């Protein structure tokens, strides 16, 4: 049984720049934590502190019974003694070693047993027959797999991934994202994944911590953070969006029907999807009407009650409860015209092409 990570620390870069982190993570169903935030928000610093590569000035990091860092007691375990896997953005493969030598580098075992283990791990990441290659002879996706294989070979208790998909070409990112999700779910080890990409976050994470201005602003289940940001800062960095988990119940002619609670959502989507998905609707794609309309061919139309109105500059963010909480972004004049108030009845209209699905399982 993997242990639990508890961290609370402050790292100061310069007199005016400091990063504060409060994190808790354990194995189990919600073991993949996404650290989300714009570039320069301190995500990598937090990861490096957890790995033992950077030293915080205050606070503590504990893993199970072990104290990895404690500023007051003057304890700071070096990375060698934390038995974790840290995969940097460019994977850090040793260019002068073969794939097999790279994987063996972190292993304690030697001899024929190690050989078997390398073979098993190579099979796990679909790299059979590549043991003798050098990193320069591999594609971007294969390099990532080697880095993961090497991390896995060490039998880590915690996995730290820094922007794992950023080094990949765009066409490769989609399949690798799915593969990475499957990989992280297949091992019962808690992991922290740093990313600034929304789709990466939604695909890979179970829970998410949003960083902004050097603080972790919000931690929670991934769709909750996207759908219900605590404050304007979080909303600005994740983008105002409705994200709800749902199940595909029907799929025909490029039109997919997803059940979310008691509501049904129609989505124009051609690709094959697993049953379990996240439904994403951007707030600016939602139109509000006072009454339902007739022509609903390829549109979604839900009637619900307004639960919140939040003015933000020239626009108003409206939350509508229509079986799930839907965010809409409309202008102030439109809001007045519709006579929107809390608890008012309203009809939300969303085009089927404006709804996006993010798979949660491998097809």
């Amino acid at each position, binding site marked *: 049984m993997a242990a639990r990570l508890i961290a609370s620390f402050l790292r100061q870069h310069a007199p005016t720049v400091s990063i504060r982190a409060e994190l808790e993570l354990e194995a189990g169903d919600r073991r993949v934590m996404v650290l989300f935030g714009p570039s320069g928000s301190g995500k990598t610093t937090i990861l490096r502190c957890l790995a033992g*590569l950077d030293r915080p000035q205050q606070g503590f990091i504990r893993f199970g019974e072990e104290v990895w860092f404690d500023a007051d007691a003057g304890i700071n375990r070096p990375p060698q003694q*934390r038995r974790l896997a840290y995969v940097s953005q*460019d994977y*850090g493969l040793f*260019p002068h070693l073969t794939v097999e030598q790279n994987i063996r580098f*972190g292993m*304690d075992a030697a001899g024929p047993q190690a050989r078997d283990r390398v073979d098993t791990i190579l099979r796990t990441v679909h790299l059979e027959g590549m043991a003798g290659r050098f990193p320069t002879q591999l594609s971007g996706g294969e*390099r990532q797999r080697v880095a993961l294989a*090497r991390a896995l070979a*060490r039998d880590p208790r915690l996995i730290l991934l820094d922007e794992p998909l950023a080094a990949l070409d765009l066409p490769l990112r989609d399949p690798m994202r799915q593969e990475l999700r499957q990989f992280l779910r297949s091992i019962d080890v808690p992991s922290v994944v740093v990313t600034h990409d929304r789709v990466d976050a939604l695909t890979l994470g179970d829970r998410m911590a949003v960083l902004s201005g050097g603080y972790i602003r919000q931690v929670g289940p991934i769709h909750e953070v996207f759908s219900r940001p605590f404050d304007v800062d979080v909303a600005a960095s994740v983008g105002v969006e409705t994200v709800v988990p749902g199940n595909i119940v029907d799929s025909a002619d490029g039109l997919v029907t997803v059940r979310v609670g008691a509501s049904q959502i129609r989505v124009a989507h051609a690709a094959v999807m697993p049953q379990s998905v996240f439904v994403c609707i951007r707030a600016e794609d939602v139109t509000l009407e006072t009454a339902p309309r007739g022509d609903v061919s390829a549109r979604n139309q839900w009637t619900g009650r307004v639960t919140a109105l939040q003015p933000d500059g020239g626009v108003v963010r409206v939350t509508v409860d229509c079986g799930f909480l839907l965010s809409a972004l409309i202008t102030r004049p439109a809001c007045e015209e519709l006579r929107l108030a809390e608890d008012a009845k309203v009809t939300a209209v969303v085009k089927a092409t404006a709804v996006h699905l993010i798979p949660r399982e491998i097809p």
Partner: protein
Amino acid sequence: MDWSAILLSLRLATATTLILLVVGLPLAGWLALSHRRGRWAVDALVALPLVLPPTVLGFYVLVALGPRSPIGQAYEALTGSPIVFSFQGLLVASVLYSLPFAVQPFAAAFAAVDRNLIETAWCLGASRVRTFTRIVVPLARPGIVAGVVLSFAHTVGEFGVVLMVGGNLPGSTRTVSISIYDDVQAFDYARAGRTAALLLVFSFVVLAMTYRVQRRSGRSWPLVS
């Protein structure tokens, strides 16, 4: 041609280079990779022979190793003969004199190794020493070859320090450059010319080979970026 002088120079250069490998690699590793305070002082100390006149360096080595110094007395008590004006004394002076020619290329090559790879090795459980020997040194090989060649060639050609510390004893401290100097003093230009030509060809061949090796290894080990 003064074959005994040529052999002696080669012997001296080989021994000096080997010692510099043993001493210089860890020293360069420390200079390039650690962030201890006071590093600048060690940097300056290592670079000192670059700017110091060889006679000044030779003078201090002579004084430090002389029969009245503690080191000189200890050596004489141990071996029964003085260290100055011997091959061993010359070796000590050579190592000091060629130190920057080995350590600076080593350190530059170590500093150029992707920091990310070093940290990755640490996270994979490798100690600092293992990371150094398995990752840093292999990746810095072109720079290490450069340091070895430079210090070897530099030792073959040294003159002032040898004159101060070694003197001119055939077979034990009379090196190639001293031999050429002697020949010129004795107006034997033909003999001096032959030795000089040999040294010239030797230096060119060694450098050409080094550049060839460097170029090839540079292509087979591009750092992943």
